[in-house]
C-alpha cells in the first residue's frame, strides 16, 4: 500500500524553511535553464518562421548568402519563364529580383552602431511574401527614395516614424510605413525598391538574389532543381526554409554554453536536494520505523521519499518558471552569422520550454531523492525506534 501523499505535503509544510531554501535553489537552476531555452526558442522562431516553403531563393552558384555577390540582370527574364511559378492578379509571375545590403544605424539609446539589413525588392517582392502586415502608413512606391521599416526597427532606432527622413547610403530616405512580419527575420529589416537600393550602392548592373514563389510544394522542389540544372543560368536555388535553417547555426555557441551551464548547475542542485532529503529522512527516522511497524512495505517508503523529493523539485520548477514569466517577450538581438547584421528576436516561454524545465527538475529530484529514500527504507526498525 502506498503512503498517502498528504504525509509528504504536511512534512514539507512543517519544515517550511528547509523546503523553501531547497526549492529556491532548484528554482534558480531551473531559471537559468529556462532563460537559456527561451533564448534558443526565440532565435529558432526568428529564423525558422522566416522561411516560406513555397519560396525558392536563387543565388549565384557556390554563394552561401544573399550578401555574397550577385549575378547579371539578364538572368531574371529566364527565371520568370520557369514553369511552376505562381502568378499575381495581373498574370505576372511572382518573381522578385533583390539586393540585400547592410547599413549602419546608430541605436536610439546611443549605445553604439548596429548593422541593419536593407532589402531592395522587385515589384512582386511584397506578393512573394505572405504574412505581412502594414501596421502604419503605406508601402514604398516605385521610383521613389522611400522605405518601410519593421516594427522592431521602428522601436529601436530614431528617425523611423512614418514621414521621417532616415539617413543612410547616399542620402536621406523617406519612411512611408511600418510593417510586421510575424516574428521572422524580416522583422529586423528595412525594405525599399530594388533599383533605388542598387543605385545607392553602385550595383546597378546586377541583382543579388531572386525570390520565386511556387504554386505548390511539389513545384517548389522542382524549381530548385530546374534552377540548378539550367546551363544558361549558373545559379543555385534553395527553399527559403532551408536557407534560414542554416542560419539558426548562429545559436550554436549559445546552445553549447547552455549545456555546460545547465549541467553544472543541475549537478550542484542534485547534491543540494540530496542533502535536504537526507536531513528530512534523519529527522523522521522514528516516524519511518513506526510506518514500517504499522505495515507499510520498504518499497512504499522508498516511493514516498522519492516522491517527496520530486515534489520539492517541482515546487522549485514552478517557482523558477513563474519568476521567468516577466522576461517572456523581452526582445534582444544577435548577429546573423551569414549577413553580419543584427537579427532581433524575443525571448519566448513556449510549451516546450516549460515541458523541458519540468522534466529537468523532475530528473534532479529523482536523482537527489533515490539514495536518501533507499537509506530510509533500509534502516533497522528497532534501532530507529530507540533513537
Amino acid at each position, binding site marked *: 500500500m502506498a503512503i498517502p501523499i498528504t504525509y509528504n505535503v504536511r512534512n514539507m509544510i512543517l519544515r517550511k*524553511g528547509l523546503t523553501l531554501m531547497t526549492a*529556491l535553489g532548484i528554482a534558480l537552476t531551473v531559471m*537559468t535553464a529556462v*532563460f537559456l531555452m527561451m533564448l534558443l526558442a526565440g532565435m529558432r522562431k526568428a529564423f525558422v518562421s522566416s522561411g516560406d516553403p513555397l519560396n525558392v531563393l536563387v543565388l549565384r*552558384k557556390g554563394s552561401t548568402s544573399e550578401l555574397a555577390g550577385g549575378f547579371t540582370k539578364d538572368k531574371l527574364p529566364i527565371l520568370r519563364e520557369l514553369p511552376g511559378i505562381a502568378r499575381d492578379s495581373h498574370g505576372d509571375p511572382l518573381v522578385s529580383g533583390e539586393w540585400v545590403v547592410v547599413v549602419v544605424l546608430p541605436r536610439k539609446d546611443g549605445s553604439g552602431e548596429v548593422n541593419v539589413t536593407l532589402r531592395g525588392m522587385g515589384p512582386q517582392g511584397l506578393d512573394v511574401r505572405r504574412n505581412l502586415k502594414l501596421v502604419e502608413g503605406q508601402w514604398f512606391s516605385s521610383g521613389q527614395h522611400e522605405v518601410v521599416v519593421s516594427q522592431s526597427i521602428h522601436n529601436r532606432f530614431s528617425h523611423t516614424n512614418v514621414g521621417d527622413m532616415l539617413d543612410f547610403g547616399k542620402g536621406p530616405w523617406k519612411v512611408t510605413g511600418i510593417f510586421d512580419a510575424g516574428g521572422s527575420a524580416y522583422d529586423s529589416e528595412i525594405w525599399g525598391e530594388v533599383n533605388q537600393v542598387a543605385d545607392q550602392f553602385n550595383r546597378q548592373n546586377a541583382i543579388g538574389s531572386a525570390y520565386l514563389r511556387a504554386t505548390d510544394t511539389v513545384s517548389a522542389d522542382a524549381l530548385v532543381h530546374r534552377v540548378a540544372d539550367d546551363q544558361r543560368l549558373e545559379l543555385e536555388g534553395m527553399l527559403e526554409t532551408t536557407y534560414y535553417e542554416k542560419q539558426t547555426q548562429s545559436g550554436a555557441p549559445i546552445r553549447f554554453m547552455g549545456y555546460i551551464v545547465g549541467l*553544472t548547475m543541475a549537478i550542484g542542485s542534485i547534491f543540494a536536494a540530496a*542533502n535536504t532529503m537526507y536531513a528530512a529522512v534523519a529527522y523522521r527516522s522514528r516516524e519511518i520505523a513506526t510506518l514500517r511497524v504499522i505495515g507499510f512495505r520498504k518499497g512504499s517508503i522508498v516511493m514516498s521519499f522519492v516522491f517527496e523529493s520530486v515534489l520539492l523539485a517541482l515546487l522549485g520548477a514552478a517557482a523558477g518558471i513563474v519568476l521567468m514569466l516577466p522576461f517572456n517577450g523581452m526582445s534582444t538581438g*544577435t548577429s546573423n552569422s551569414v549577413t553580419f547584421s543584427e537579427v532581433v528576436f524575443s525571448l519566448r516561454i513556449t510549451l516546450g520550454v516549460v515541458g523541458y524545465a519540468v522534466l529537468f527538475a523532475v530528473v534532479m529530484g529523482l536523482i537527489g531523492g533515490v539514495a536518501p529514500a533507499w537509506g530510509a527504507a533500509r534502516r533497522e526498525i528497532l534501532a530507529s525506534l530507540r533513537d
Partner: protein
Amino acid sequence: MTLARFVRKNAFRNKRRSILTVLSMAFSLLLLSFLMSVWRAFYIDQGSAESAQRLIVRHKVSLANFLPGFYREKIHTIPAVVHVIPVNWFQGIYRDAKPENFFARFGTDPDEFFDTYKELSIPADQLDAWRKDRAGAVADAALAKKYGWKVGERIVITGDIYPIKLELTLRGIFTSTQPNNALYFNWKYVEEGLAFAKGHAGTFGILVDSPQNVDRVAKAVDVMFANAPEPTKTETEKGFQLSFINMLGNVKAFIMVISLAAVFTILLVSGNTMAMSIRERTREVAVLKTLGFRRQTILGLFIGEAVAIALLGGICGTLVAYPLLLGMSQAPQLGGLFLVALREWKYVAPVAWGVAIASGFLSSAIPAYGASRTGIVDGLRHIG
C-alpha cells in the same frame, strides 16, 4: 582542544552532509570561476604585446563590403605606420563542409606578412619559397600537424564567397607563441583569378611603431576615409575580435546573469546546510554556554564552520575549473579563447575563494546569531 580543532571536528561530524554540501558548492563555484575566466579573456585581456601594436581596418558598413586596394598605399603615408598588409578572410571549403574541417584561411601579402605578425616565425628558406610561388601557402604548425601536412603538400580550397578553386602548395610551416591555427596564401592568386576581387581587399592589418601611437593611427585612418565612398572602421586586433563575440548578443549581460544565479545558489546551499546543522545542535549550544563560552565565541564557531566548508567547496571548484579550461583550449575552433581564459584563471581563483568565504559568512550569520541567543534552559530542553 583548540577552537580551530573544535570547528574542524564539527564541520565533518556529519560526513555525508558536509561532503554533499562541499560538492554542491564546488559545482557552483566551478561554474563561477569558469565564467569569470571567460569574461576576463573577453573583456580584460589585451592580447600579446605584438597584437596590441596592430590595428585592423575594415569597411565601416560591414565585413561583407570590400575596401579598395589602393587604401593600402594611402594608409602607409600616415606617420607611425610601419606595415600595411591585406588580411582577407577567404572562407571556402577544405575537403568537405564539416565543422571539424574548418579553419581560418586568409589571403595576404607574403612580402610583409611575417614582418607585421612578428610573433610568428618561419625558417628563412621556407619564407623565400613562399614569396616565389604565387600559389604557395604557409600554415600554422598545429594545423599542419592536425592534417599531417608536410612542406610541398597540395591543398585545395574551394571558394564560396569567392567563386574560385585555390590549388595551393604548402611552402612553409610557421610556429607561433599564440594559438593561430590558420592558413595564409598570396592574395594576388585570387585577384588574378577573379575579376571582381581585383583591386579589392576585405580587411587590412596595420603594424604601428609603438603601442602609444595605436589610438592616434586608428583615428587618422578613419578620418582619412570618412568622406570617401567606402568609409572605414579601424580597431585594435582585440577590439576586432570582440566585435565577433558581441555578435552573439549581449554576452556581457548573459555571463553576468548566470554568474549571479550561481552565487545565489551557493548562498542558498550553504545557508541551508548551516540552518540544518545548527538546529541539530541547539542543545549543545546550551551546554557550551553552561560551560562558560561567550556568545561571540559561539557565533564565531558556527561562522568558522560555515566558512571552512564553503572555502573547501570553493577550492575544489576552482581546481576542477583549471583542467576543464585546459581541455576546452584544445578545441579546434574556440580553443584560442579558452587558452587566454586559462591564463586568467590565476586571477579568478582567489576571487572565487573570496566569494566562497563571503557566502559562508553571510549564510551562517543569521542561524548562528539565533543559536547564540537561545536561552540555556530552552536549549537544554530542546528536542532535535
